[in-house]
């Protein structure tokens, strides 16, 4: 059994589980370099907030020099934007590294970062466009859901109920259960539609990080085109990955709980010190888990993108030129 069969190593469309396996393998075997890029990117994202804290502390204690705010606020916003582009370029560099590994054209972290850094404004524009699209979709969904629920409410005799709330007994219990189920259904549909949109845009940053001569809006188009088929397959991949990350989150929760218990020994739970300490701790833990999980998600997205290019564009289909060498039989 299985003696001559080599699942994802030769290039072929992969199953859901093998996409996750491959992404996970990329993550674990490149753990250190990816983690370093992720850590630096996350620190860039943190920088504006670190700058903000002393500023707030300063104005809170001095309560003067408010005129400088006119200068400080724009300066801080510029810093925020610059640091965000740094973060996005760093995250994209991890995905580029993972993709390079898959296509057997590996790069050093420096090379990958140089490339993604040169497109840092593209990543910012991409994030803003996708963010705006999501905002639009969410608003439209809320409005539709609201209209739908109001209509159902009206059909089920909700108006009578509003006129005379005391007559609750008049409302048929099956109607209440049915409307409850309908609201539940609306929530499920809402979630599925949001998931569908998330999948359709999920590899846009990969296109921008990898493909030559492409801008922010084209890469959104690329993601839309590549994910046209098999949306729920990709959704499943992301779901399986999400479940794999749960142990990390459980670990974070356990550490949080333990340290919080320990802190109560140092400070009384109602004191300011306690609040400050536990808040700082939760921020640090969130950052740490973010640093650990970012490379995993980026590797996974790189494999998804690679698999889509394979399925939809036959990226793997090329007669290989081995020259004088014989084809490698084993990796």
């Amino acid at each position, binding site marked *: 059994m299985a003696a001559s*069969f080599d*699942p994802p190593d030769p290039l072929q469309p992969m199953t*859901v589980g093998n996409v996750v396996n491959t992404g996970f393998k990329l993550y674990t075997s490149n753990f250190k370099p990816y983690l370093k890029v992720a850590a630096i990117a996350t620190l860039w994202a943190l920088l504006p907030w670190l700058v903000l804290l002393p500023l707030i502390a300063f104005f809170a204690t001095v309560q003067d020099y408010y005129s400088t705010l006119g200068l400080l606020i724009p300066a801080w916003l510029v810093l925020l934007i610059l640091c965000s582009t740094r973060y996005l370029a760093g995250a994209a560099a991890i995905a580029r590294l993972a993709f390079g590994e898959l296509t057997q054209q590996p790069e050093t972290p420096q090379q990958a970062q140089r490339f993604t850094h040169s497109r840092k404004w593209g990543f910012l524009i991409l994030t803003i466009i996708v963010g705006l699209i999501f905002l639009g979709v969410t608003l439209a969904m809320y409005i539709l859901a609201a209209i739908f629920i109001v209509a159902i409410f009206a059909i089920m005799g909700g108006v009578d109920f509003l006129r005379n709330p005391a007559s609750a007994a008049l409302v048929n219990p099956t109607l209440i259960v049915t409307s409850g189920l309908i609201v539940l259904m609306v929530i499920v549909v809402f979630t599925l539609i949001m998931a569908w949109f998330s999948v359709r845009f999920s590899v846009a940053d990969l296109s921008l990080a990898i493909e030559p001569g492409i801008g922010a809006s084209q890469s959104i188009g690329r993601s839309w085109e590549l994910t046209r088929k098999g949306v729920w397959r990709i959704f499943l991949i992301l779901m399986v990955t999400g479940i*794999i990350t749960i*142990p990390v989150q459980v670990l974070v929760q356990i550490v949080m709980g333990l340290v919080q218990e320990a802190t109560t020994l140092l400070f009384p739970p109602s004191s300011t010190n306690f609040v400050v300490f536990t808040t700082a701790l939760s921020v640090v833990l969130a950052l740490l888990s973010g640093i650990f999980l970012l490379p995993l998600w980026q590797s996974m997205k790189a494999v998804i993108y690679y698999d889509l290019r394979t399925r939809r564009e036959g990226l793997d289909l090329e*007669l290989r030129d081995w020259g004088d060498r014989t084809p490698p039989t084993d990796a």
Partner: protein
Amino acid sequence: MRYTNRHTLSTPESVELEYHLAGVGNRVFALIVDYSLLLILLLVYWTIWVLFALQLFNYLSQLGGDYSAVPIWLLGIAILGNFVLYSGYFVFFELLWRGQTPGKRMAKIRVVREDGRPLGVSQSVLRSRLRPIDDFIFLGLLFIVFSKQEKRIGDWVAGTLVVQVEPQASKAQLQCSEAAHRLAPDLPSLTTLDALSPDDFAILREYLTRRASLTRPARQDLSMKLAHQTRQRIQLETIPADTSSDDFLEAVYLAYQQVHQGLSWGERIAPPFQNQANSESERIP
């Protein structure tokens, strides 16, 4: 880099068997499917049980008498049934389908004994009994990720492995065009078809099988690129007129298959085509 872990075992006959282990992705995927099915099964079970119990209470209240012990008994039996369903689900399917459950079927994985034999009742029951421990704070997941043989506690105790199922090679014959069938018989004499390696042939077959799911521009580009590469590889000067790049690739596929399966050609239909190659538009650069 290898993206799957492997497990090699030597049989008493000194034959080495290599298994591709399922990997955490396939196992979590299978678990999601199985637990979803199990959840539906249990929901149906409890709904039926509650309806049954309500009917029973109704009936008993008409009879009169003291039946105060009945609810606790009903609950007890229900919990027992719940337990049987939960552990029976995996054992039942694993024995029925030789180590597969519906989820494992979807993920194309299978449980086998460490020596490669199909698993028996005791292994399946042990795995199933230890499942709650493996599920507790995702212990099994951690064990799978951090052990070389990807074993959860249940696998250690039962002496089992979870491996990938060899995909069935598709037997379906490719649909090839008329033009390809006409061109194919001439290719062995006109070209050095031997220069095409089995790897190259596999790529051509992959393309021909998967072309329908490619995007249109990608398919056009790829067809031209592959035709160009193949033409160089088998040293064909020009591709005949009225032959699209897809037709040409199909013809090479057919010819290679015929030569390597040692089948006879039967009658040769088409004349040599080099003289016909006059249409520039159909030429592949």
